[in-house]
């Protein structure tokens, strides 16, 4: 079965996706110049998707970062170039897993809002079919019947909605998260 089980997708959605903005911000600093951050994210997800279905990851954050660090180290070795900074950044990273903290609860709410904004920003024909599917639980077939368009058209709009959504979520991230190095600059208002 090449496809994620529902439970696994659920796990990804609650345990991994919310970590992505932070991971991405870190990667932007850690990844050697000229390499695409998104490549590493996709590869890290591939590793996680390859886990046996019954594998239980106790510390998803630590796990995700460890995997990603290894991928970068591997890439750095492969390139046979050691960019200044990359390795120290990798060594610097510390991951503290502290159970469910108030931050995590608040940030999980932020995550839902982020999603809300990303969906709201979809072009309206796509958004309509997307919302009918996801919020009203209608099948693609039923949506086609209700809107009086072909199933193929529904599928096209749905694909477009999802593609845009993937982009919007990333756009939000780069907008919302200043780089950690900027975050560290502290100045009086």
């Amino acid at each position, binding site marked *: 079965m090449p496809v*994620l089980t529902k439970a696994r997708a659920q796990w990804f959605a609650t345990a991994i996706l919310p970590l992505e903005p932070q991971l991405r911000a870190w990667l932007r600093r850690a990844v050697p110049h000229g390499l695409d951050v998104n490549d590493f994210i996709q590869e890290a997800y591939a590793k996680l998707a390859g886990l046996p279905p019954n594998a239980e990851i106790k510390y998803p954050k630590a796990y995700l970062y460890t995997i990603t660090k290894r991928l970068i180290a591997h890439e750095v070795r492969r390139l046979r170039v050691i960019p200044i900074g990359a390795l120290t950044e990798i060594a610097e990273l510390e991951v503290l897993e502290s159970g469910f903290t108030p931050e995590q609860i*608040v940030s999980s709410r932020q995550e839902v809002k982020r999603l809300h904004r990303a969906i709201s920003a979809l072009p309206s024909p796509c958004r309509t079919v997307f919302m009918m599917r996801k919020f009203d639980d209608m*099948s693609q077939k039923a949506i086609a019947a209700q809107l009086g368009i072909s199933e193929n058209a529904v599928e096209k709009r749905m694909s477009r909605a999802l593609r845009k959504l993937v982009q919007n979520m990333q756009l939000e991230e780069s907008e919302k998260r200043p780089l950690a190095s900027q975050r560290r600059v502290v100045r009086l208002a």
Partner: protein
Amino acid sequence: MRETASAIDSKASDWVVRIDRGLTNVERKALERWLESDVRHRGALARVQALWVHAERARVFARKGEMLDSPAGRLRPRSLAWLAVASVVLIIVTAFYGLSRYTRTDITASASNEIVHVQLGDGSRVTLQKGSRVSVEYRLLKRLVRLESGEALFDVAKNSHRPFIVEAGDIRVRAVGTAFDVDRWSDSTVDVLVTKGTVDVWRQSKGSDPPLRLVAGSRVHITPLGTDRPSEPQFADVPAPTGDAAVIELNGLTLGQAAAEFNRHNRQTVVISDPRIAAQRVVGRFQASDPAAFVAAAAAMLDAHVRNDDQRLILQPGLPPTKK
């Protein structure tokens, strides 16, 4: 030429939609070939599938046409404003302590990227999301917290003689000993989520209606048009706070003592150069792993600034050297 990550994301999106409507045998084989051809394909598919499942969680906001009309529903273009905003500091106003029965405290988390923890005089804790503001008034018979804007998580110390009431515009939330989060969208639209115990929610302007009772794990979205049925408790979504791993609580420690405490937990050292600053006493609550938030808060309180050289966070008196 290597396929770009965003091209892969697009294809993965198409596959997720096809999987959702059901694959034909031919497609199933094509999908398998696609997944075999590059390890990133498998990751992108997993990620988009997760997002597909994840999207259902936005359902709570999708009611009553909000999604369609929301002015917030536009992505702002990337702006330089963020750089400015990112450098603004959190401010903690020292909470009034002691025996006084009537106190008033304002707490603001300015538009920085950090989250602010404050412990109140009665032991209750408030976690403020960036850009949020509350004012706390302790009266003889009740503890009153006004959420002026934004979002805050409350962990309420038990005291059945003085109920803890949060005002967010017209909406009121009452708790005795419990934890909950209030997100003020506007004067009349509020989202409440309970993580522990039970709370009552009502509209002040409809005081005669019985309050709505919410139990741990449920959330409710209140708009001028009405109130959604509270969601069923969902602990996968809203974990109850457990333990306080790696939190440093400062109840009147001096800054010097507090810095020593952070330095036990972190490699980046907090250094306070001025003995007068080091002798100041502070109140607050921080992630032990986040000394930067602590020094930023201290700097804002004491007219100091922070120099960061990666090894050390140095708190120095006076304004920072000008740098735009």
